[in-house]
Every structure is written in C-alpha cells, then in structure tokens.
C-alpha cells in the first residue's frame, strides 16, 4: 500500500468537505474493494474519507410501502433486520448471500452500488425493484444510476446517502456463485410490483454490468411461475465469457436462476 491520509468523517457534509480538500481523494465505506486494491498498489488515493461511522448514514427504515436502507448499513445489518425480513425478505436474503461473514460485517450497500462491480448482488435488487438512489445532491432512479462496468451516474465527490425501495408484491433472488471468488457468476432478481409490473435484473452476466431481461419479464408478466420460462432462450449476445463461464452458459444461468428466484418468491 502507498502512503495515504485517512479521515473519519463525522457527517455527510464533513465527508464532502474532506473529499474536496484532497487532491485525489476516495470515499471509504466497508473497504471490501478499495482496501484490497490499495494493498495491491493498484490504487493510490492521497486521501481516504471514511463514511462508515456517520450516524445519519446507518440504519434500515420500513415505512408504509417503502424500505429505506441508509448507505453505510452493512450487509449483515440488512440481512438480519427483522422488519426487512418481513417486508422485503428477498432483499434481506440477498444481503445474507454476499461474500462471507467477514465481508458482510464490513461491506455496505452504498459501497457496493458506488463501486458497481458487474458481479455484485445489490445492483440486481436495485434495478429489479426500481429503487431510487439518494445522494447528498439528488435522487437518481435505478434506470439512470448504472452506467456500465464499475461506472455509475455519481459525480466526483457525490455521496450515496440511502437507497429507497418500493415494497413489491413478490420478489426473489437466486444466484449461482463463481467457483473461485464466490461473487455472482450470474444472479437474477425477480420482482412483481404491487401494480403488477414485472422487472427482472441479472448481475454477473453482461459485459455492461447489471442488466434487465425483457424476455423473462414478459413471460413472467403473463404467467408468474417458474414453468413460464421453460421455453425461453436468453440470448448470449453481449454476455461475459471467461474460464469460469462461457456466454451461452451464463445465458442459461439467467433463465435457470430466474426460475429459482420465482420459485423462492412464491
């Protein structure tokens, strides 16, 4: 690791100010990506601004038809939140499947979304549930937030403060783990909104990061059941291909994981 300056921010405003002062600053939340990258000398921020202890950025709120998860809430806290487990169990389930216990105790939803790793779990939930990403400057719809591999709509110095999810009628998440990293080789989040809209998002599969799967959405809208997807063939165009999964295999996984997510959603 190169030498850097560490700052613990006391508030969102403090964090933004500290960031602006650094010449090449980075925000640190759970550090599950940034710190390994720094240790490998692949990143060399002059300043690291720690968001993880800002009280206003931690917690899960369930209010009517909306779930709000503040950005520095850890995966562990999301997975074990009893109100969330009742209201939006698929999201708690997803958080409980991220990484391993050590990762879940440190990693945060805001960090995951800001990093937008193409194999991260949360982006699938955010996109399928049509959530809104709230920052210190604005609200960004899920549709507008994800811009490709490790790329988001966030501007330099912009801080995710919370994510709000409309509570769906049904939702489920199933992922097939990468044999080595245990990230999603492909993970699929399916959601049926209370108005009957169906959205399906896949992570780990596309060369452009999290993606919606229209053919599966249409089939599930017509018939919300795993068997409704039996005849679907997802196109392999634009999907990732590597030693752990060829594009056609990932295309198959999108369908099979969607079926399993629907079964889980009930």
């Amino acid at each position, binding site marked *: *690791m*190169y030498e850097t300056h560490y700052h613990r921010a006391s508030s969102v405003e403090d964090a933004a100010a500290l960031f602006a002062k650094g010449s090449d600053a980075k925000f640190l939340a759970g550090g599950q990506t940034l710190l390994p990258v720094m240790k*490998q*000398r692949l990143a060399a921020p002059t300043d690291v601004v720690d968001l993880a202890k800002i009280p206003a950025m931690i917690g899960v709120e369930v209010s009517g038809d909306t779930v709000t998860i503040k950005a520095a809430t850890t995966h562990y806290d999301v997975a074990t939140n009893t109100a969330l487990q009742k209201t939006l169990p698929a999201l708690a389930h997803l958080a409980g499947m991220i990484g391993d216990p050590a990762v879940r105790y440190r990693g945060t939803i805001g960090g995951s979304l800001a990093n937008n790793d193409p194999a991260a779990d949360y982006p699938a939930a955010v996109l399928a549930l049509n959530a809104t990403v709230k920052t210190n400057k604005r609200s960004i719809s899920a549709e507008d937030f994800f811009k490709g591999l490790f790329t988001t709509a966030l501007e330099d110095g912009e801080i995710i403060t919370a994510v709000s999810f409309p509570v769906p009628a049904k939702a489920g998440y199933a992922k*097939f783990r990468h*044999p*080595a*990293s245990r990230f999603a*080789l492909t993970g699929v989040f399916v959601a049926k909104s209370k108005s009957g809209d169906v959205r399906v998002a896949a992570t780990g599969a596309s060369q452009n990061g999290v993606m919606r799967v229209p053919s599966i959405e249409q089939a599930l809208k017509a018939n919300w059941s795993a068997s409704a997807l039996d005849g679907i063939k997802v196109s*392999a165009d634009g999907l990732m291909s590597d*030693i*752990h*999964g*060829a594009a*056609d*295999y990932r295309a*198959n*996984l999108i369908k*099979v994981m969607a*079926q399993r997510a629907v079964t889980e959603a009930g």
Partner: protein
Amino acid sequence: MGVEGIGASVVRKEDRRFITGKGRYVDDIKLQGMTHAHFVRSPHAHAKVKGIDSSAALKMPGVVAVLTGQQIVDDKVGNLICGWAIHSKDGTPMKMGAWPAMAPETVRFVGQAVAVVIAETKNQAKDAAEAVVVDYEELPAASDIRAAIAPGAPQLHPEAPGNVVYDWEIGDKNATNEAFSKAANVVTLELTNNRLVPNAMEPRAAIGDYNDAEEHFTLYTTSQNPHVARLVLSAFYNIAPEHKLRVIAPDVGGGFGSKIFIYPEEMVALWASKKVNRPVKWTGDRTEAFLTDAHGRDHLTKAELAFDKDNKILGLRVSTHANFGAYMSLFSSSVPTYLYATLLSGQYNIPAIYAEVMGVYTNTSPVDAYRGAGRPEASFVIERLMETSARQLKVDPAELRRKNFVTVFPHQTPVIMAYDIGDFNASLDAALKTIDYAGFPARQAKAKSEGKLRGIGFSCYIEACGIAPSKAVGSLGAGVGLWESAEVRVNPVGTIEILTGSHSHGQGHETTFSQLIAERLGVPISQVQIIHGDTDKVQFGMGTYGSRSLAVGGSAIIKAMEKVEAKAKKIAAHALEASEDDIVIENGEFKVTGTDKSIALPMVALAAYTAHNLPDGMEPGLKESAFYDPSNFTFPAGTYICELEVDPGTGKTSFVNFVAADDFGRLINPMIVEGQVHGGLTQGIGQALLEGAVYDSTGQLVTASFMDYAMPRADDVPSYKLQHTTTLCPGNPLGVKGCGEAGAIGASAAVINAITNAIGNNKLEMPATPDRVWHAIHGQA
C-alpha cells in the same frame, strides 16, 4: 504399549502453538539490522532484457542496494540445477537451458526476477522496485504444450531444439504392440491432467544472514528439506561452503512439494546478505506464490488399453507430453518419468506396458513435484481407462477391476516397480460395502425422478511411497540418496530428544514420532522432544516429501532407538546384577523378567551420564544415531468410490457420498492419518472440480489470485467416510506405508468417473467446472 503409543489417536502436540498463533515462521523472525528485499519481476512471458537502470531507485528513501542478474552471474553464483538426470530414447542426456537466479539476458516467464531492491523496510523496497527501469524487447511466447511443440514455435532455450527437454520411454515397445495386435478390444482415451498451483498457506520466505566475523552464513527458509538446501547452495551455487552455512527451516505452513526446491529468491537473499553485509529478508506475497512457486501436473496424454476376449488386460500404451515450464526445477525431470510411468500398471496384472514421455519447455512458471508428483497423473490415466473400458465393454466397473487385480505378492510390474504386499480385493470390498453399491441403481432412479443426474465412480489407486531406496534411485539417475537419519538422545534426567532429518510442515511429526518412543519405552509423549529443521542440530537428512517421513524417517528413529535400548539394557542389567537378556522395558522401567527388581529410565540415564558404575569398557552417555535406507518403495493402495449428483440446469456437482478405503499398513496415529487423507482427498477433489492454472496465449497467468483460481472450500467437499484395510509393509520395521499423498493421488479419477457416469458423456476435462459439465450435458451451443 501405553495410551500414547502406536495406534493411539493422540491429540497433536504442535497444535497448541499453531492454533494460538504462537508458531514461529520465517517471517516472524526479526534480526538486528535486517533489511528487506523486493524483486523486480518480468511482466512479459518472453523477452530480452536490454538494460536495467537502477539510478532513480538507488536515490529513493531507505534503499540499501539494487542488485541485478548480471551481478549474480559476475559473482559466479551457479545456475539452478535439476538433480535427476533423464536420458532420451536415443541415449542423449536431457537438454537443459541455463537458469540463473535472476535473469541477466532473457526472461522466460511472467514473474521471473531480473533484479532485487534491498531497503530498510519492505515498503521502501517496493517503492524503489517500481523505479527500476527495465528495457525489455518482447519475444513471442509459447504458453502451453501444444504451442511449444507446434512447427515454428518460439524457441525458449538454444540447448533444447523444438523446446523438447527429453523424449523418454519405458517398457517393452514390441511386446506391447504385439499385445495390442492380439487384442479382442482396445479402449482409447485422451486426457488432460490440469495444471495446479500448490498454494501452501504460508508463502515462501527467506532470511539470509551473513556473519562477517565468522565468514559464516545462516539461511532461514520455508523448506521441506533444509539439508538438501544446504548441500545444493554450497556444492552447486557456490554461495557458501557447507561448513559455513547453517540452514534453518522453522515452523513451515504447508509445502505440498512446492517447498522441496531451492528457489532463486532464497539464493538471492543469502547472496545479497554478504553483498550488503546485513541480514536480508524476503517474504513472498500471494501473487508471487502464484507466479513463481513450482506448479504441478500439466500433462497431455493419449492412453490405450488392450483386452482379451475375457476382459483380461493384455497391454497398456501411453504417450504423454509433460510441461516443465520455462526452466527445469530441482526434481522436475523425475516427476513425469520415474514417479509417473512406473505406476501406470495400477493395481492390475498388465503383461506389457510401453510409455513414452516428452518433456517440453513453455513460457510458464517451472513445474515440479506437487502432492503425489507423477503418481496422481498415473492413477488418473489407468483409472479413467478402467472406468471407460467397463463402459465400453459393458461390464461392471468393480468387477472389471477385480478380474484384473494383482493378487499374488510380490508382484513385478513391467515398469520397474515390484509391489511388495497388498490386498486390493479387501479395500474394494470395504468401499463397496460402505457406499452400499448394491443400492446405487435404486438411488440413481430416485434422483432421476427428482430431476438430478446421479453417478458413481471408482478409483483403485496405488502409489509408490517411502521414497526411496538410494541404490535404486541412483541407478535411475537421481543425484542424491534418499535414506533418512535420526539421533535419539536420552538426557541425564530421562527426557528424550529425537533429532530427525525429516521436516514437519503440517504433518504432525512431533506427535507421531513421539508416539514411537512412547511405544518403545512406555514414557508419555510429553517427555519427548522432536528436533528438526536445523542443519546445526541435525547432522543430515533428506527431508519430507513422497510420503516418506514415517516409513523412512520413522524407521531411522527405530534403528537408533534399538541401539539406545541395547545400551540401556546393559546399564540396567549391570545395576540390577542381572543378565541383560532378562531385562524387559515396561512403562518407563527396566525390569528383570520374573522378578520384582526394576530400575526406572531416569536412573538408567543418570547412570549413563554419571558413569560411576557402568559395565567395564562402556562409554558414558546414552545417545545413538542411525541411518536408514529402505530396501524398496512402499505401496499404499486403496479404493475410492464417489457418489454424486449433477444439477442438469447448472452443471453443478454435489457430493452424496465419498468413501475412501485405504491400506497404509500400520497406523501410528489414526487421527493424524485421517487428517492427512481428508487433506489429500480435498486436493484431489480440488483438481477434479475447481483448480486449474490457466495462462493465456501471451503467457500471462489468468488465474493469478484466489479470485480466479478456485481453491476448495469446506462446503465444496463431502463428509468423507474412511475405511482402513491393513497389510503390513514387509520392507520396514514399523510395517508402515505412508499416507500423505494417497487422497490427492486417488480422488480425482473417482470424481470424474462419477460425473461422466452421471451425465452419460465420457468427454470431460478437469477441472470439471459447472460450465464444462453443463456443456458436456447439453453440447456446445
């Protein structure tokens, strides 16, 4: 004898310090004035080094020195050696290219060191290493066997035309061809034995410490065989004379073969400590381990088995290409030859065998022994062939094996090995019973009704362990003898120290070896100290690998112990005024048989050291040493049966049951044996399902971290069911055969046989990832 003797599952003595974080590893050692080394490594798989500019690096904070490959050549440090001479079919010796510890002119794999920065701290050394400017002229690379032997392939070493190190053969070609010409059936199989990264938990590390006043060197190193390291460093690398070099291998966190070899980094740390006249520490990180530890396996093989009309094997023909990487590592030449082809007979009567092996240079990390070393590759060939044959001949795979088992011992195979003893039917029967083979069809049908593909697969492995009879290996080209030494010291107060040339890096020697003493003397193992891993304490030894430590090292201890006992009995008889023939040893006492007269061990020991009342002419003291050279290899063998399910939707494999029925001869500590088998099986399953080192066509290692190289985790492997059948090894006084490698040797074939059985497609390469299995079920898209 006693609760801590042979056969007792005593809790491991060494685990208290390991699991409380008190183990002392090389990186824990901090010497006065110690500097830190960081290597400048090639980012290219093949390139000319046109120049190295260290001027900027030398000006950086804390930098003590920047040393280059040219300096190591100028100092006449020897090139790395390969210690086993292999000759090609035409009688020519193997064709080796030079391997300097740091490359002065040409780099041949990604990660090869060209220079080293020595600085006050590790971070300063890393910073300065980035400032060393190396001018490379890139050359085309050959990153796998096929690329290296293709016409017009990039040439790695001028000494090895066509990148061929040797083209070796074993067995009777004509007799084998004749067997095939008479065959009723021939079964043919093409196999890849995938390349593996050993991944010991502790990365390699070294501290070189030159003492100017004494002109003496000490090397602390992560070694499985510190004496061999000292021998090679002094006799071949000219860094220090043997009597001026102490090598210490303290606690070592796993090796699996990868720490047998003396690597460039250890050489450089030692050499550099004299250059800078300060201790020099290098601790590798995980990336360096992936890039520079000797990898394992990496064979391409075509194999054919000939059967008569009664399904008896007539002959076996095998042609293998073995990847050596860019340089010949210390024992690499022996692995795909004498450690591989000599085991191709498996557990079977095969009248004629012919095998040829072509060893090939590629622009990849060197390849050498890794848990099993040649024997897993052999076992995979014959056991995949047997399973395939059963399918092709439409006979039960267990019965086909049984029909061809060797049942009369000793048995001379056509490929050197003479099996001393075994009972292959016994281990097969034990495994069949444990897995309820008769009930498999019903279980398979039930799984099918639940949408799962269930399969069962066998592997009846045999290995040659207890490595090795020195004369035999010498006649086959080995540069060293493979005996072991031991010294037994009974201290004046009756406690006992055992000095052994074996080295424990996870195997539990401190416990197992102590149990040998507990058995002989009836003393608790807490009174016994095992001393190893220090060339100043232990006179000589050949180290630990090849499942040799108990069969060879333990036998040396027994031999020394017998001498101690003989002398102690004389002292006891003298003190008790009895005949030494009447003295028996029980529970730490020397007793006159048939009387109530006895003298305790501490009193005998004290008498030996006070020497006030010893038999006339007897030397004082109670300390004996012995060398033990085995008369043959040992032959652990067994049957593994794997039952698993494949999810046709994802291609994912889930284990239902895994039975291992092993014959290791006598078990000293059954709990430790079980642990060794669990670890070995897990590595074998890792090879079958998960692990694979992949280089891209430019020679970059794609799987250079655990994010892409899949190591088995606890939930990847089943809860094993272990069985033991026993035939005592006649070749050593303990009757033991060795257990460290069996699991890794036998498991992978059982897994692949089971998956291919489940999916009904025999064409499946390792690692059988879900992607590959899914494609094997559904065909290529």
